[in-house]
């Protein structure tokens, strides 16, 4: 390691530029540490104390001079210093000196002053502050998307009451997905604009429905999130009801889709009653409920997310909905062939999900056909995993659950944990099929399929060394217009030998068939 320094006499650059130069230097491979500071006596002392400077900076210098010091590998530091010099001697950026600079908004009120036409505030702060920020936004006449979680139930109720008083909407708390006037907010996909509006108490549920609608060639008017607790008794479905009414009034919306895990009974009743009063078709998908009776002719009950999307697409075309059915893509490797490769000991499905609703939907479907399924978010507490890191029999894991995301990023952003789990599942001789979801869109990993494919290949190779084959089944929730690109992601997974389906429900059914050794049925 060597240290070099250079003094620039009477060179004044604003603090932002100095920070940028320091950061750019420190980021260079081979540079251990670097600093761009004014050459005051105090800073010379500090640099010596930190070990960045040995002795003096060399030559004459004073407080009005700029000093750059770099410590790193010998063949890197001189060029790093030269680059820093050229950065500094470029014309200064728009920011002015160390005095006042253009003021970036630091509060909702300041932001509204800069953007007086805004009608929505997206709030993502630590939970203990989020409610206060949401209250401020509502008092300023803004609708709210509350991305933050860890907001108390009491605060959620109070905020939604305040919103109702002001004829505004609160999406959230813990609302991670919305598409408002075509703008994807949070973890959302790039979808066509169109005539189908959706309100969902589930982020990935909303993503699945909007992506399937896009895939069918139709589009989305608005996609509103309610937060996961909205349909609890205490909250009363406040946001879902508000969203339903808003879409009923929206001239661009012709068909409405509602999505949630099982709501509280009274809340479900109230929502269905209101849906029945709306003069537009409403498709209701309350996953896991046993609703059979349609409250009105124009209210359609869907059992899965893909059914909900298919129903909405049919209705917007003026057709009667019919179930999506088993939509395994015909040109995938034959499931019969995969079944034939399995040993008799290989009986189990292991689902590793990044989307909580996908895990839940798969639990519902697999439980019907395969019997008990273990999970960290089980349908029945009897089948809670005793060790989250160890699967038992049929197991579906929601890797986005708090237990796995404490201190680390969500698996949609950082797939490391899932990729490791895929390889470790291959050690279990009882595993027949590994079931996966892949979620694209804004906020998700740049190229999730690449890393996933690598883990799948590693797992397959590991099992093969023990003389076993493993089937991999997945669905990709995304669109061609998403930053990651649906086609490229699906291609990468196909090359890794994954059976791909259009929807999460179809993937779950395909996995169940493989484990149960049922012949594939094409529709």
């Amino acid at each position: 390691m060597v240290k070099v320094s250079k003094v620039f006499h009477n060179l004044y650059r604003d603090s932002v530029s100095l920070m940028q130069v320091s950061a750019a230097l420190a980021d260079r491979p081979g540079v251990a540490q670097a600093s761009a500071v004014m050459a005051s006596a105090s800073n010379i002392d500090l640099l010596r104390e930190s070990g960045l400077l040995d002795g003096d900076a060399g030559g004459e210098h004073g407080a009005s001079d700029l000093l750059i010091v770099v410590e790193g590998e010998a063949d890197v530091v001189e060029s790093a210093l030269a680059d820093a010099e050229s950065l500094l001697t470029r014309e200064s950026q728009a920011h002015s000196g160390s005095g006042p600079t253009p003021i970036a908004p630091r509060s909702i009120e300041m932001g509204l002053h800069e953007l007086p036409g805004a009608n929505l505030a997206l709030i993502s702060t630590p939970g203990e502050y989020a409610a206060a920020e949401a209250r401020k936004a509502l008092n300023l006449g803004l609708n709210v998307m509350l991305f933050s979680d860890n907001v108390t139930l009491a605060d959620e109720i109070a905020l939604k009451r305040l919103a109702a008083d002001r004829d505004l909407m609160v999406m959230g708390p813990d609302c991670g997905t919305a598409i408002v006037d075509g703008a994807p907010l949070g973890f959302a996909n790039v979808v066509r604009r169109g005539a189908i509006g959706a309100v969902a108490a589930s982020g990935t549920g909303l993503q699945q429905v909007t992506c399937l609608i896009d895939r069918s060639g139709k589009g989305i008017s608005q996609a509103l999130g309610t937060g996961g607790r909205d349909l609890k008794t205490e909250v009363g479905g406040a946001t879902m009801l508000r969203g339903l009414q808003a879409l009923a009034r929206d001239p661009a919306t012709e068909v409405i889709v509602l999505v949630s895990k099982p709501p509280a009974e009274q809340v479900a009743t109230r929502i269905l009653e209101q849906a029945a009063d709306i003069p537009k078709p409403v498709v209701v998908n309350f996953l896991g409920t046993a609703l059979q009776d349609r409250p009105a002719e124009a209210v359609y009950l869907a059992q899965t997310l893909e059914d909900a999307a298919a129903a909405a697409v049919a209705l917007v075309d003026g057709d009667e909905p019919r179930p999506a059915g088993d939509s395994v893509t015909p040109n995938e490797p034959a499931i019969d062939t995969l079944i034939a490769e399995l040993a008799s000991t290989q009986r189990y499905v292991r689902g590793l999900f990044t989307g909580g609703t996908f895990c839940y939907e798969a639990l519902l479907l697999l439980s019907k056909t395969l019997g008990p399924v273990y999970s960290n978010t089980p349908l029945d507490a009897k089948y809670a995993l005793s060790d989250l890191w160890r699967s038992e029999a049929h197991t579906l894991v929601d890797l986005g659950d708090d237990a796995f995301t404490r201190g680390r990023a969500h698996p949609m952003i950082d797939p490391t944990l899932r990729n490791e789990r895929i390889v470790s599942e291959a050690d279990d001789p009882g595993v027949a099929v590994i079931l996966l979801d892949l979620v694209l869109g804004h906020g998700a990993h740049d190229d999730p399929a690449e890393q996933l494919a690598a883990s799948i290949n590693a797992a397959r190779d590991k099992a093969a060394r023990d003389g076993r084959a493993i089937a991999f089944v997945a669905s990709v929730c995304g669109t061609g217009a998403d930053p990651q690109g649906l086609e490229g992601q699906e291609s990468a997974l196909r090359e890794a030998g994954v059976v791909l389906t259009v929807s999460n429900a179809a993937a779950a059914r395909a996995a169940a068939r493989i484990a149960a050794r049922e012949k594939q049925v094409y529709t």
Partner: protein
Amino acid sequence: MTSLHALSTGSRMATGHFTGSVHSVFGRACNITLDGGGMLTLLAAEFGNVPHGARLDTPPGFAFDRVLCTGDRVGCRGGVARFAKAGLEVCLSGARRWHAELDQLAVDLGLPRVAAAWQLTQLVMELNARDHAQGGLNLPHARRKALPDAVGALRSHASRTAVVRLVGCGPGLTPAGDDLLVGFLAGLRASAGNCASRQAFLAELSATVRGAATGTNAISRAYLEHASDGAFAEPLANLARCIAEGVEARHVEAAAGMALAVGATSGTDGVRGLLSAMACWN
């Protein structure tokens, strides 16, 4: 010839007759070294006032650094400053004169509304604080802490030592230690009230800051010198007033936001100094 007019001028801004040269120039501001000593600053319209500056009616897109160069000469006669080489004239006369009145305040954190305003500012600062780490050189916590510890106990020698160790210290064009000192002086001035011992201590400390200011660059030195005379930039002064008067939370928050937004990190350091000083004398 491009003509600009001053919208407002700081209380310590020369407006009548002076000569000088451009010391440093940026997109939306420029500093001028006066031949008779001292510095003044010309600011674009969107900024708050500074004691030694003038806010000008700059049109959108106007950039000082496209018009002026370091070393350009300027002469002011009858309230009109002319940069002959650049073809720029700035009319300084007739503008509203701005000044802060921190001496009239008397922060009392024993009053619930004042304490609430202080705490809210602290909270906003914590939520908005930018990362000071720049290539491993931070303003050491010990140096930051030494000043309020010494001032709280009215220990003159320790305070003087703490001041000297802060001047010119830390990252930024106006080093973090200087910004902290400016904020600290504002906080003390807003808290001294009618207490004779505090007034005396503040006078002594201000003299120390003025004397130590030669240890930093000219731009930062100007702010330190004005602060030692009780003159502060508008965002910081406004925040001090909001806290001292215990105004409504939304006004405190807006004022805190404006003060924190100054510079890249200068605002945060200044607010930190302000709060620290108010706390150590309450």
